[in-house]
């Protein structure tokens, strides 16, 4: 329960008007730049032209959006499951931790765009190499956040558990894992935005469908309105997936105190990257 406070809608307005105003300002600046003639129209298309294109070419974009979304979600889910499993293994075994960490770090620092061509060579032009790149991008934050979460559990809680005689499995299921969930969700939210990047990077390297392909094509044709439209759609996909996870978090962890409609703020903080 929260302290009783006025109107629920007022809270929603309170939270959304700032980001909405910021977005409107950005659009206005974009518009002003294009009408001022400071920049050639073929370099930066006007917002109206871009949105017009979004509407006109919607059926074309829609198909490619699906492809990218599909690769992203598949990569994200695989990274999520693998990441949690690896994290659990690392927390419960010193040997596994010390063995896996260097490998993990190596997989993280290696530039994905540089190894993506290799996956195309190995796996062909289908969706598989894109999913692999998405997994590679999303995996690391999931592992790190889950390890942190599982280790963050109160030692007194674990000692208490020992005196209750529940054994390691019950201790994990009832105490350790739930305690790690807030950290896990933080990692998943970072991971899903990275998975989008991974899928698009995979498409850049070798593909004939997906939003990465759309952007590459538009680039080749000097079709800047289409390029902008592609960028916007990619961002929207990322934002929607992020918000979906945020919603899941709010539903699953209503007890978590750091949750007070922070979705939009977190989102804005990440918006720049």
């Amino acid at each position, binding site marked *: *329960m929260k302290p009783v406070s006025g109107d629920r809608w007022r809270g929603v307005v309170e939270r959304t008007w700032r980001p909405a105003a910021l977005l409107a300002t950005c659009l206005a600046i974009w518009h002003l730049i294009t009408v001022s003639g400071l920049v050639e129209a073929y370099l930066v298309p006007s917002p109206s032209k871009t949105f017009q294109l979004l509407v006109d070419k919607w059926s074309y974009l829609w198909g490619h959006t699906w492809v990218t979304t599909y690769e992203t979600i598949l990569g994200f889910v695989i990274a999520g499951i693998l990441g949690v499993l690896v994290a659990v293994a690392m927390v419960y075994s010193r040997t596994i931790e010390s063995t896996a960490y260097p490998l993990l770090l190596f997989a993280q620092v290696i530039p994905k765009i540089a190894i993506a061509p290799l996956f195309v060579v190995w796996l062909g032009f289908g969706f598989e190499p894109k999913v692999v790149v998405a997994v590679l991008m999303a995996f690391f934050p999931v592992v790190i956040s889950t390890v942190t979460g599982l280790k963050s559990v*109160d030692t*007194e*809680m674990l*000692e*208490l*558990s*020992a*005196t*209750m*005689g*529940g054994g390691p499995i*019950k*201790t994990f299921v*009832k*105490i350790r894992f*739930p*305690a790690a969930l807030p950290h896990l969700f933080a990692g998943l939210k970072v991971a899903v935005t990275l998975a989008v990047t991974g899928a698009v990077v995979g498409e850049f390297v070798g593909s004939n469908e997906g939003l990465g392909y759309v952007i590459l094509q538009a680039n080749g044709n000097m079709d800047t309105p289409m390029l902008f439209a592609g960028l916007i759609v990619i961002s929207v996909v990322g934002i929607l997936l992020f918000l979906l996870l945020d919603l899941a978090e709010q539903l699953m*962890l209503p*007890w*978590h*105190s750091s949750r007070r409609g922070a979705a939009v703020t977190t989102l804005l903080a990440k918006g720049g990257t």
Partner: protein
Amino acid sequence: MSTVGMSVTLGTTTSAVAIDDVSVRFQSKRTEVTAIGQVSLDVAPGEFVSIVGPSGCGKSTLLKLVSGLLKPSSGSVTLLGEEVRGPRHDIGFVFQRAALLEWRSARKNILLQAEMRGMNAAEAGKRADELIEMTGLAGFENALPHELSGGMQQRVALCRALLHQPRVLLMDEPFGALDALTREQMNVELHRVWRETGTTVLLVTHSIAESVYLANRVIVLTQRPAVVKEVIEVDLPAERDYSATMARAEFAAATAHIRDLLGAVTGHD
């Protein structure tokens, strides 16, 4: 079963807790700390024993030894007639911080004990409700820990420690974080619970008044490495009304004596 107030010397076999020449050394990379020098202590079944001593002298360590969460460097601990070799399940433990699961309601936090032990759910539920009633938590069963006051959280921790009707209850500064008034209320409640259940209690506390009000005996420990400095038999009636007890000459004498032993103004009272 009740042996409260027995004046006969009890042998090891009948003790609820027998600590026998125990010492504990902690070794880290650079230092070696002897937390407990050489401590022996017998606690009779149903007895309430308070443990006081300077900060960092090894009180928490002593309780961990009894529960089996920690192994002694030498000596042995016997709990309910069985030597302690690993974490024991036949005890209830209350820590200084309530240590509640923040995603579980008060009632579900109490029932964690039952789930971990695989107790019969219906029976455990009934017992939890009784304890909730007894500790004045009724009406807050479904509140989450962050919606409870510090005193209520401690009550939940107490209920959880009592759910499985342990024969030995270990409490490590359970009321340290509470304000003076709530603490007094909790003392009165704990006293009543102890009288009703006949559980053996080992209570570590920094409050001299609390240690005397609740206990049959108060164990005063020395600075680290801890040894038993003196054992004070509390000469108060079994039935202890709070303000009446505070006003008694025996109470004043005992607290003054313990304060002397601790050598300074250690208590908060």
